């Protein structure tokens, strides 16, 4: 009796989690709006891939979680996992056709049901969902029993095909920018989605590359490490040179729209690197970080905007003031919160951020800051007559800022101050006992972070040409926090990866933009639960998190896998 229950228990449990996730994804409208984007033209859409991937994943997880080592049991659980996931959707369709759910759930539309059943009505459609569910189950079971290498190649090639399909808006203009490659672009893509032949060739190509890398990668890597120091340095220098060239040429390769996306990503990188110093290096969770961004922007606006009419500085004359005032306000806001730690600090800084926004928005400061209408006509920056007007020019301004800030961050990290920050992050009391001046160290962290933020605020003001209080709400702070956490707390490449993934992707995928905050929230929770060190972790953090894991797991008897 107990034995039979245990047999399919994991499948049902995983399937229920999957089913609830599938329902959620469908009912918040994700499936429907992702359905508009074809991955393979006229065949598979992003919405379908989302659900299929969920079904397959649930089957796979069910198979893996099953404690029983019997292959048949695992197969059974994989099937059940996927089937139950599909079953929830089938229930939704069946129920939704009987009762009008739309009064309450705005996205439970006939369109959604049609999409889920692939256009079949009545019982046929519902059976089809269950059939697809079991199909996912079979696929996941097969995937589970494939040899390790084959599975890796299969997953890598299929997912890169999906990634290419998802990023079509990014890849197509890049390919068409240059004559010889434009042919490939035309062959790979139709107006919406990949061509079938294109998709197959990507799968085959990536499969070959990954299998070669899997078989020969070890030799290549050992070959690299065996190289003499000089030639290794040569390779690295060459790589850096290529990177520099690519960075320099990027806006011309990408065109206007993508350059605009790049400038936004760049601004977030600037902001992220600043917050990275406060949160990542010094370990102080600052949720009011957007305040300094606002201060930088508004100082620039006051000093340059003829609309406010106080001063008529140029951008370059205003920039140092913006940064200095930003640093100063960082210290000023830092002083009161010196003695707070952890969550108290987070809430207090959140309060500060909101106070600044409310003050800027109020009628009280309207004569100076322009109230809800903000201030406009902020001049563009120029160097020797080169005007930073459009995104393709401002890109260079932001790139210069990013490089400067990356350089400062890198140098700070290993410096005495950087080490003091990290010591403080680990344990304040011990750090103080070691002779670190907590007050000065904390204030320097706030000041540096605020300076970076004010710098990006100034660039932002000049880029937009105007400032509005609504650009500075608490969501910005949360976005920045999100990107440094997803990228990896304390890690500089992590910030860049995080910004590209969390800021760049939603700009590229308009369908995605609406679910941005939803996905951010889910990503934060999932990251904290599964991978607290981030996508591109800092070495120190990676060691720590895994140390903590192994330590906390030690007392328990290790579960049979």
């Amino acid at each position, binding site marked *: 009796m107990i034995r039979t229950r245990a047999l399919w228990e994991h499948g049902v449990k995983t399937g229920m989690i999957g089913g609830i996730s599938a329902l*959620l994804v469908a*009912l*918040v*409208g*994700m499936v429907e709006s992702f359905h508009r984007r074809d991955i393979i033209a006229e065949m598979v859409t992003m919405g379908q891939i989302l659900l299929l991937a969920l079904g397959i994943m649930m089957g796979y997880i069910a198979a893996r979680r099953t404690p029983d080592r019997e292959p048949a049991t695992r197969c059974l659980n994989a099937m059940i996992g996927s089937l139950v996931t599909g079953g929830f959707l089938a229930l939704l369709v069946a129920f939704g056709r009987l009762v009008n759910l739309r*009064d*309450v*759930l*705005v*996205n439970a539309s006939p369109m959604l049901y049609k999409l889920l059943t692939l256009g079949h009505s009545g019982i046929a459609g519902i059976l089809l969902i269950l059939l697809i569910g079991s199909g996912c189950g079979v696929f996941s079971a097969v995937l589970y029993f494939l040899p390790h290498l084959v599975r890796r190649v299969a997953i890598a090639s299929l997912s890169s095909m999906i990634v290419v399909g998802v990023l079509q808006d990014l890849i197509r203009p890049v390919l068409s920018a240059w004559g010889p490659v434009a042919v490939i672009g035309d062959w790979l893509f139709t107006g919406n989605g990949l061509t079938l032949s294109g998709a197959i060739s990507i799968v085959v190509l990536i499969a070959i590359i990954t299998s070669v890398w899997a078989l020969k990668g070890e030799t290549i890597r050992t070959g690299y490490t065996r190289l003499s120091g000089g030639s290794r340095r040569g390779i690295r220098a060459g790589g850096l040179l290529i990177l520099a060239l690519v960075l320099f040429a990027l806006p011309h390769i990408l065109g206007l729209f993508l350059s605009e996306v790049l400038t936004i990503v760049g601004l977030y990188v600037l902001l992220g690197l600043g917050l990275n110093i406060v949160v990542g290096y010094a*370990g102080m*969770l600052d*949720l009011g970080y957007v305040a300094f961004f606002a201060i930088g922007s508004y100082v620039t606006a006051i000093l340059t905007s003829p609309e406010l009419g106080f001063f008529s500085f140029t951008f370059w004359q205003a920039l140092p003031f913006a940064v200095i005032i930003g640093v100063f306000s960082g210290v000023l806001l830092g*002083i*009161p*919160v*010196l*003695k*707070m*730690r*952890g*969550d*108290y600090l*987070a*809430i*207090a800084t959140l*309060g*500060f951020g*909101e*106070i600044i926004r*409310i*003050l800027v*928005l*109020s*009628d*009280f400061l*309207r004569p100076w800051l322009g109230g809800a209408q903000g201030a406009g006509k902020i001049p563009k920056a120029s160097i020797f007559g080169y005007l930073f007007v459009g995104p393709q020019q401002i890109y260079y301004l932001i790139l210069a800022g990013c490089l400067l800030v990356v350089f400062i961050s890198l140098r700070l990290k290993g410096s005495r101050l950087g080490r003091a920050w990290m010591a403080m992050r680990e*344990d304040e*009391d011990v750090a*103080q*006992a070691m002779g670190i001046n*907590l*007050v000065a160290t904390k204030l320097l962290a706030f000041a540096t972070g605020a300076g970076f933020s004010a710098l990006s605020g100034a660039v932002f003001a000049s880029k937009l040409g105007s400032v509005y209080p609504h650009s500075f709400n608490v969501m910005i702070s*949360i976005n920045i*926090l999100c990107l440094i*956490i997803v990228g990896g707390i304390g890690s500089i490449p992590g910030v860049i990866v995080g910004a590209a993934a969390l800021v760049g992707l939603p700009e590229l995928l308009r369908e995605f933009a609406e*679910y941005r*905050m*939803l996905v*951010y*929230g*889910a*990503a*934060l*929770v999932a*990251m*904290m*639960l599964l991978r*607290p060190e981030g996508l591109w972790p800092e070495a120190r953090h990676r060691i720590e998190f895994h140390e*903590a894991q192994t330590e906390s797991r030690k007392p328990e008897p290790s579960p049979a896998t």
Partner: protein
Amino acid sequence: MFQRWKESITPTDIVMWLIGGSLLLMILWGSAATIAAGKYTGRHWIDFVIFGLAQGSIYALIATGYTMVYGVLKMINFAHGEIFMSGPYTAYFVAAAMYRSDFLDHHPYTALLVIFVVAMTVSTLIAYFLEKIAYRPLRDAPRLIPLITAIGASFFLQYTFRGLYGSGFQAYPVIKIFEGHWTLLGIRILKFQVVVIVAAILLMVALYSFIMLTRAGKAIRAVSEDKEASSLMGINVDGMVSTTFVIGGMAAGAAGVLYALMFKQVHFFMGFIPGIKAFTAAVLGGIGNIPGAMLGGIFLGLIESVGPSLFLDGLGIPAPYQLKDAIAFTMLVLVLIFRPTGIMGERLAAKKA
């Protein structure tokens, strides 16, 4: 070492006292000027106070959830504002259906009961599963991690509800018997404000007696004192943490309905600002302290309602009402700076690492 740093006066202390002193001076100056100007009559002030009491009692109910969770887990449940939002937002659809079928007008008490039950159930379920899925696996993680999780959960819930129910404002149906006003001792009071205040007080009494008088309440208090010792005493710590979330969720759901009755609308973002303010209230009363949170909530509601007119109007600030949130947040920061233990405080902000 730490003690000495705390006790010796540093330049930063002086700066802090200067900030605090100037703010206090500003408040006194503003109040004196406002009263001298005589722009507001006694009637106005009474209205402000009653509105403040109603709003404050809602904050108080939400704040108990923060404070109890802080007590047992030592973490700020940043997503508590979303628990508060989820209940009334879901109950809106029930209320709207009852309104359309005239049930709301014919049986207002039953209808209200149904609304409360639906809202409290939804909020409770969300709170329960939130703890189970997102917080329980991180019980022993470094402090920053559950906080970040809570922030993530907060936005996840907000935008999930936005996706499910749509992004517009929904007008809560009006309950006719609570419209109009009563005259009490010569003072005109809006009926729904009385209802909000009375309901909130009843709920708080119920909650407080649950914590103080029942076995489960005693166990929760024991877990807040010392998790390990109470587990050695045979208390099911996980169960008590869940119970805490359930009670906090119930209080938040009920507070949400009161809020919706008072402001007559619901929105997916409606939990964010009240959530932060309720946290402020919890800190005001000393976090971890339940009666403190209740008093803190009422105090904050009063300050927020009376403050803009009293402190700022006299200083010649136009449209002072726009700054009421700024007053609440300034209070939060000031309390955290000068009296992190709160009015009835138990613990120190700086003591916990």
